């Protein structure tokens, strides 16, 4: 039995858990190919025109898998904690796919609504295992292994690495520290993000992403807004930004967003206004399937140059 896992959306946030779980259940796991022009084009063909890039991409990745696996894993991410849900497009994802992709008959739709309870997560795993006729103990074992694998993954982030990009550690001596905020499926997909993070590191900066900030630290900024945002990933991004702004531990913030992203117009504007109030350098990069390398390079170089100059002026004033 072969399970296909689309390499986008939930993948970048939770793949160690998902992959390990299916493998330990004794199933063969096939991850779709890394995002490429073909995959994007395949997605654009079937997805509704005004959907954001990640949703179009998901269609492409599903089509990449459809004919070579027994089941395509399509999560319906509803909630992982008690305070928020995911973006409406995540909630409606399997329904969208069922109506947009012709001949999609082998969708393994899994509704994930765990509200932060370990028990619910296990029950969900048990249900999935049951579909493949795997017993309680196999399921429990796979679930345990998956949790360990996920824990290991989050620890790598906390130690300054970016595992999905194969970055194990960054140079501590970098002169500029950059906060790069955005959703995992935008930041860690090298094709969609046009390798933005590696480019920044190549320019000699130290990059901090939301996953590299411990959960307890982010939680401290939960009360910053009068009303908590409705979306899990957005809360993580916004709280990370507040952490950067309040502690001043970075020289500037770059927000990476998808063109037309629904939740992000709120998140982006709040961060922009807050950054302006505190005089923090702030740059928004909106990406879609047409964004070009050169334009992005120019903007990133200009931003980093500006931060370097700012730093020099500051240092000169201190002397």
């Amino acid at each position: 039995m072969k399970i296909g896992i689309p390499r986008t959306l939930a993948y970048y946030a939770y793949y160690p858990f998902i992959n390990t779980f299916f493998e330990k259940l004794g199933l063969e796991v096939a991850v779709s190919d890394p995002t490429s022009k073909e995959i994007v084009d395949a997605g654009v063909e079937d997805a509704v025109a005004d959907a954001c890039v990640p949703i179009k991409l998901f269609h492409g990745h599903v089509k990449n898998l459809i004919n070579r696996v027994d089941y395509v894993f399509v999560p319906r991410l509803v909630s992982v904690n008690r305070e928020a849900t995911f973006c409406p497009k995540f909630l409606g994802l399997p329904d969208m796919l069922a109506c947009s992709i012709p001949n999609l008959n082998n969708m393994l739709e899994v509704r994930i609504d765990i509200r932060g309870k370990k028990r619910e997560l296990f029950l969900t795993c048990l249900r999935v295992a049951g579909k493949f006729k795997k017993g309680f103990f196999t399921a429990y074992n796979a679930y345990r292994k998956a949790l360990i694998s996920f824990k290991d993954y989050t620890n790598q982030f906390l130690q300054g690495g970016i595992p999905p990009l194969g970055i194990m550690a960054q140079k501590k001596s970098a002169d500029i520290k950059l906060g790069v905020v955005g959703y995992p499926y935008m930041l860690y997909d090298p094709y969609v993000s046009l390798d933005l993070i590696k480019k920044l590191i190549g320019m000699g900066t130290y990059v901090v992403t939301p996953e590299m900030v411990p959960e307890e630290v982010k939680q401290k900024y939960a009360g910053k807004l009068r009303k908590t945002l409705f979306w899990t990933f957005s809360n993580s991004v916004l709280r990370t930004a507040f952490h950067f702004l309040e502690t001043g531990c970075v020289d500037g913030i770059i927000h990476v967003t998808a063109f037309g992203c629904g939740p992000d117009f709120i998140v982006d504007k709040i961060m922009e206004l807050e950054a302006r109030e505190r005089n923090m350098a702030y740059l928004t990069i909106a990406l879609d399937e047409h964004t070009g390398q050169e334009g992005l390079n120019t903007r990133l170089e200009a931003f980093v140059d500006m931060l370097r100059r700012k730093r020099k002026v500051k240092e000169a004033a201190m002397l």
Partner: protein
Amino acid sequence: MRKVSYPYLGNATITFQKLMKALGNDVVLPKRPTEETLSLGTKYAPEFACLPFKIVLGTYIEALEAGADTLVSTGGVGPCRAGLYTTLHEKILKSLGYDFEMITLEPPGRHLRDLIASIKKLVSKKLSIADYFRIGRFVWKELQLLDKAEKLSHKIRPLEVKKGETTRTYKKCAELIAQAQSYRDLVEIEREIELLYEKIEKKDIDPIKIGIVGEIYVVIEPAANLEIEEMLGDLGVYAERSMFLASYTFYNAVMDLFRMPGERDVKKLASPYFKEMCGGHGRESVGNAILFAKRGFDGVIQLSPFTCIPEIVAKSILPKVCAEYGIGFLPVTLDEQTGKEGLRTRVEAFVDLLAAKRKKKKMNLGKGDVVYGTLSGY
């Protein structure tokens, strides 16, 4: 005394003014959104904000310029982003230097205490329980009457012999309702409205029927949807929309308070295609489209603001649903760039298609053939 203002929403604007006055506030009446309103909103709103966000932001700026010191709007529980609009509106307006208080009326089901606190802020006069009852009854009746007058106008416009007569009658009715001061007035006006519409000379035809579904603000507010219902009526089409303010308020405030799911049928109908509540009116759009199809409508138009997330989900589901039920589908995305003439062209083409389809169906039926083929309005 507080100087209260609020977003413009069709005829309900007048009703809300009466309510605010009855509670002892001064009101800065929001103006009907114009192109200037929209360009003000577009100037200060983020690029990907949806059309309602921009229109409302523009309306707020105009109201603040006219001297309002309190803005009242509704909240929401998500995951549709509209529930967070007041938070962001407030932040943007404050960053522009305006000084005011933002009062957000959250749905009572989950924020009852907040709602009561917000309402307390808006009561600037000593009122007895009987007063509250009187005000409540009046406002509710007025909202229902407004909806009734509008529904009748949609029904009669495609049948009118003299062009423009229905629109004139409707405006007259709206004015009558706006002038009402007591519940008794409203009861009398109700009879008068029926009479006025009866007087219109009507053709005896069976017009093309189109259902309108989509996001609530652009469905309800004609300034946002470029008066699409009037446009359809003038083309001889009976257009019926899925949402009216009074019933919407009822379902989402009262039913929610008692934890009863609103619009149960619609959700049930949508569930084979759309299994999850995803906020906004995405699922209702799908459910209502099916309801229209079952009632024998010829087609469905979906109105959605550009980048509206729940409607994007619905939009990828609706073509299949409409094809299965054999009715036409036309998605209309609205933003500050949408022009009325472009929309009219698309709507006219859609109506022509539906008429052709109906004719074909009739001919085939005459020959005893099976009706086949579906139409999706792209």
